[in-house]
Structure formats: C-alpha cells, structure tokens
C-alpha cells in the first residue's frame, strides 16, 4: 500500500516537472484565462467565445505577420489559489499574451507569474483600481474602467449637473459597494463643493431600513449615493418614498439592472445609476454580437464586448509592433488607436483604456435612459 502511494507520488512529481516543449515560434500563442466552470462561469465563458471569434477571423485572413494565432484556454474558477496554477501552466506552455483573468482577485494573484515571464495580460473585466494604479504590474492592461472611475462619474454628475451640496453616502458593507462608497466620499470631499453629511453601511438582507432612512432625512441630504447591488437599493428607495423622503438616489453599476426597476416599481422612477457607456449603436458592436449569434446561436454574455475589444487591441499591437516582446507591445498599445466594439481606444502607461468608461443613466418611464 505504502509502495503504491510512493509510486503515485513519484508519477505525479514527474508529471508536474516535465516541461512542456513549445513548438518553435511558428504561431502566436494566445492564452485565455478566467472562470470557465463554477458559479461565476457566466462571467468567464463569453470571453472565450470572443477570443474564438476574433482569432478565427484573423487566421482566416492569414494571421498576424504571417503567423497563425493559437488559442490556449485555461480555467481559474475565479479563485486566486487556482489562478496561480493557471498562470504557471500557460507560461510553461509558452503563451505570448493572455486575455484575462476575469475576477480581480484571481487576476492579482496571477499577475506576478506573468510579469516574471514578460507576458502581457489584458483583462476584460477586472475592475479593482489597484491593478493599474499601484504600478506593480507593468504587464497589465484592461478594457474596462476601474471602480473608482465609476465613483468619479457619479460624483461629477451629482456636483456639476445636479448641483448638490449635501450628500449622504450609504453602502452595503460589501467589497464592491463599500469600495465605491469610499471613492465617492473621497472625491466629494476633495471637490470641496459638497459636504458628505452621512457615511454608513447597512446590513444586507435586513427586514427593514426605516431607521437609516430616518437618519438620512435628519441629515438633510439632498441626495443619497448608494454603493451596492439592486436588492438593497430597491428596499432603501422604497422605504425612502414610504417615509416621504424626496431626496434623489444615485447609485452604481450593481443597481443599473432591470431587476431594480422591476422590483422597486414606481419608486425607482427618477433614480440615477451609472453603468458602462451604451455601445449598442456602435456598428462594430452590432457586428460582434451578430458574429456571436452566427457562431454560437445565442446572444453573448457578460463582458463579451470588452473581451472582443481586448483581443482586437492585443493582436493589433502585436501586428504593429511586429513582435510579442512586452515593451514593444506595450508601446504599440499606448500609441496605436484601435477601433473596437467599446469604442476607439488606446491605453495609458498604467494600462487603463482611454475611451471606455461609464455614463450616468436615469430611470424614465420604467427604463434606464443614458443621460
């Protein structure tokens, strides 16, 4: 028995340590990493589809500089501890660029491994501000705006368009909601134009929010800025209207969901929420969605357009730089504008895409309208 275990262990060690010999440079190895199984798979699989569509098109047109693009797909289940393995595997297989990862936590865990190997990583969905702003990951770029950009858009809208001077900032204590709220508070205080009269977290799932609503009322806030998701948002806005509190409601992407309007009903009328810029009128976006329908027979899922754009941007940069070497590709990303479904974009030196961002939407007659 003991012997058997030993043999098995030895076999496993061999399996892990045997290097995967890459075929010598006749293809461009394009890695795709993200959640492809598990409960967040719906965030990761559309990215795989996007890469497949673009790469098939590119290869049909003769590839990049005469080289075919080869797709390598790896699952990280959105877990940081799995993501490091995923990254190691892709690097050992010799990837030159990686589209991914999907979740901020997993991306952060995987980035140092790619960094050591000099591999460019572009995420369609990781919005954690630190990934670009910390400067620790020079090999990282993304085609989605970071979380703080959203808070900035909301704050500017509240101050400059709506002209509020007293704002209550409320959040749901979660990573996403609290992160948004803290940025909003910071930007509001830095602006000097408005006072944050209240900054508090509510307990998600509580049966009744009337106490916090009474507190908001007493604070004299003209608007409530809420960081969190739509279930709490609809409860709070419903309770505000029940308690005859007229203050405006401004929130984030987690609220810009049709379920919010469905659940909050008439109370949601007039509420503001920020969300990614509307790209449905962009011809490239229409084309990308159509290609997805032709190839997979269904509407694309989350972050599809960001992933499609990231694939285009990376392949375009490799093409222009005529190299897959990190510095050359980065330079091409920063200088060459590329037309994508999310707009005409290029990248700043930190890796954030310029040209993608958020707009503010308002609920009018039961639908979100871009302002």
């Amino acid at each position: 028995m003991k012997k058997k275990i030993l043999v098995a262990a030895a076999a496993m060690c061999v399996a892990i340590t045997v290097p995967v010999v890459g075929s010598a440079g006749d293809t461009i190895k394009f890695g795709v990493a993200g959640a492809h199984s598990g409960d967040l798979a719906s965030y990761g699989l559309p990215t795989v589809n996007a890469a497949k569509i673009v790469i098939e098109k590119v290869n049909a047109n003769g590839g990049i500089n005469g080289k075919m693009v080869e797709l390598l797909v790896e699952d990280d289940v959105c877990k940081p501890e799995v993501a490091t393995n995923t990254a190691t595997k892709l690097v050992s297989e010799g990837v030159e660029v990686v589209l991914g990862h999907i979740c901020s936590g997993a991306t952060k865990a995987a980035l140092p491994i790619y960094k050591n190997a000099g591999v460019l990583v572009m995420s369609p969905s990781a919005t954690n501000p630190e990934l670009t702003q910390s400067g620790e990951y020079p090999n990282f770029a993304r085609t989605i705006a970071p979380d703080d950009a959203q808070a900035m858009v909301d704050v500017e809208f509240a101050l400059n368009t709506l002209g509020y001077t007293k704002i209550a900032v409320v959040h749901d204590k979660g990573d996403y909601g609290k992160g948004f709220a803290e940025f909003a508070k910071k930007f509001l205080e830095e602006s000097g134009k408005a006072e944050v009269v209240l900054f508090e977290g509510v307990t998600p799932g509580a049966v009744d929010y009337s106490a916090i609503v009474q507190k908001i009322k007493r604070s004299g806030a003209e608007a409530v800025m809420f960081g969190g998701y739509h279930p709490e948002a609809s409860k709070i806005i419903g309770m505000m209207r029940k308690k005859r509190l007229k203050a405006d409601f401004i929130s984030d992407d987690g609220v810009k969901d049709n379920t919010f309007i469905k659940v909050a009903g008439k109370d949601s009328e007039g509420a503001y929420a920020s969300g990614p810029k509307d790209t449905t009128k962009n011809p490239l976006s229409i084309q990308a969605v159509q290609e997805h329908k032709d190839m997979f027979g269904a509407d694309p899922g989350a972050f599809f357009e960001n992933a499609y754009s990231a694939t285009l941007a990376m392949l375009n940069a490799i093409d222009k730089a005529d190299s897959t070497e990190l510095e050359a590709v980065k330079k091409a990303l920063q200088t060459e504008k590329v037309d994508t479904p999310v707009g005409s974009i290029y990248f700043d030196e930190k890796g954030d895409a310029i040209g993608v961002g958020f707009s503010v939407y308002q609920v009018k007659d039961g639908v979100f309208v871009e302002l």
Partner: protein
Amino acid sequence: MDYFIELFCSGLSRGAIYALIALGYTMVYGIIGLINFAHGEIYMIGAFTSFIVATVLSILGFPLLAIVALSGVAAAIWASAYGFTIEKIAYKPLRHAPRLSPLISAIGMSIFLQNYVLLAQTSDFMPFPELIPEFEFMEPYAHVVGSSDLVILVTTTIVMLILTYVIKFTRIGKAMRATAQDRTMAMLVGINVNNIISATFIIGSALAAIGGLLIASHIGQINFYIGFIAGIKAFTAAVLGGIGSIPGAVLGSLILGLTESFATGYVSSDYEDVFAFSLLVLILLFKPSGLLGKAETQKV
C-alpha cells in the same frame, strides 16, 4: 424629540416583524424543545405562496381585500402542510435521539428548502405586490409610521393574544402544556402526543405564512434566501425573550428591534448588529433562560 419618536416607531415595526416569525420558533421549542431552523424557510414558502396566489387573483381581477384574504388563507394552508410534513419526515423519527440530531436535521431541512425554492422558482428577487394599501387616515403620519407598519404591529398583538388564550384556556392548549411538561406522562393520561405536536407545527407554520405575506408586502421583494436572515434574527429575539415563552418572544423581538433602530439612529448602522448581539450576550449572562423564560430544571 421627533427624531426619537421616528426611531422608536422604526424599532417597533422592525420588532413586530421579528415577533411574527419568533412566535413560531418559540412555540415549537416550548412544546418539544427543538429549535426548528426550518421555520424561517416556512416563512419564505408562505411568502412565495401568497405571491403566486395574489398574482393569479389580481390577474383575474379580484378586489384587494379578497386577494389579501384568499392569498393569506392559501399561504397558511400550504405552509402548514409543509410544517406538518417536515415534522413527520425530519423530526419525528429522531424524537428519542440525542438533542443534537434533530437540530442537525433541522439545519439540513432549512438548506434543502432554500435550494428547492431556488430551483423551483428563481434566484432573482421578485417584486411582491403591495397587498397592504396606503391608508388615507395614515397620511399625516406616513413619514413616521407607514400603513404596513401599523398592520404588522396590530397583527402581531392580536396573534400574541390569541396564542396566549389558546395555550392558557383551551383543551388543546392544556394538552400542549402537558406535552411540554412531560411527554410520557401526557401519553399515560390519554393525550395523543403525536397529534398535539403536529398541531403545534401547523399553528406555527400558519403564523409564519401570515408573517410572510405581511412582511413581504412591507418590504416589496422576495427571494429564496429571505427566510434565513429573518429567521436568524427572529431566533435571536426568541432567545432574548426566553425561548418557549409566547410573550417573551414578542418582548424579545421588540427589544431587539428597538436596540437596532436606536443603534442605527444614534451611533451608526454599521454597528447595529454589534449592539443587538452585545445586548443578547449581556442578558443571557445575567438571565441565562432569557427575559421571560423559565429556568429549565433537569428531569431525572
């Protein structure tokens, strides 16, 4: 002073919501000494049943009062059927097992029911129709107490009075108390203990269903998970008031609701749970059986 009254009313309505659920917890515990963790799920199933019935009836064009009454009755019957079945399947076979076994069985039942509703219905939040209308005469006070708050408060009071009456003065109540005191002895004097326990579960589940209807209408949305969170708080309230005691459950719920409300109002809503549970710890330190609970004597 106005602010104090506003917070007081918020606390009362929150407490009344907890009380509607806590009553069922405390009743079952009082009779068979089991913490029925699936009670929160019964409340959730009651809310879903009334949601479905109310939606169908409003499409058929019934008047609001009829919708409320019929969906309430339907929810109560349906939830009672669940309560009855759960007891037969998950608790009765374990009646002579160590106390931990039915507790684990209850937690399992709770998880099972949540996932069952998740699969059978949806994981999304659904808008619950406003079954309690905004009363005309409440309009001047609407900024302090809403109509649904008032209905929940009144219902809780009535339910508590009826339950106390039933347990103190009726035949079945006497039988329940006898079962609670000594099951074997109750059997020996000719009480059908199985029927009494089933009746307890049916009453508790019907209460939870009525609570589900009122609370969902007050909050305006439901999903498969609402029973868990509300259930935990209601359970806390029942323990605070002395689990097993009917007035204790209401008292505990009101104290919990008021504590949370004042903590939010005067300190910060970040700390409402800290205050609520610190209070629980404090009370249990000085009065381990809860405010109105009877100290349990070990039966030899």
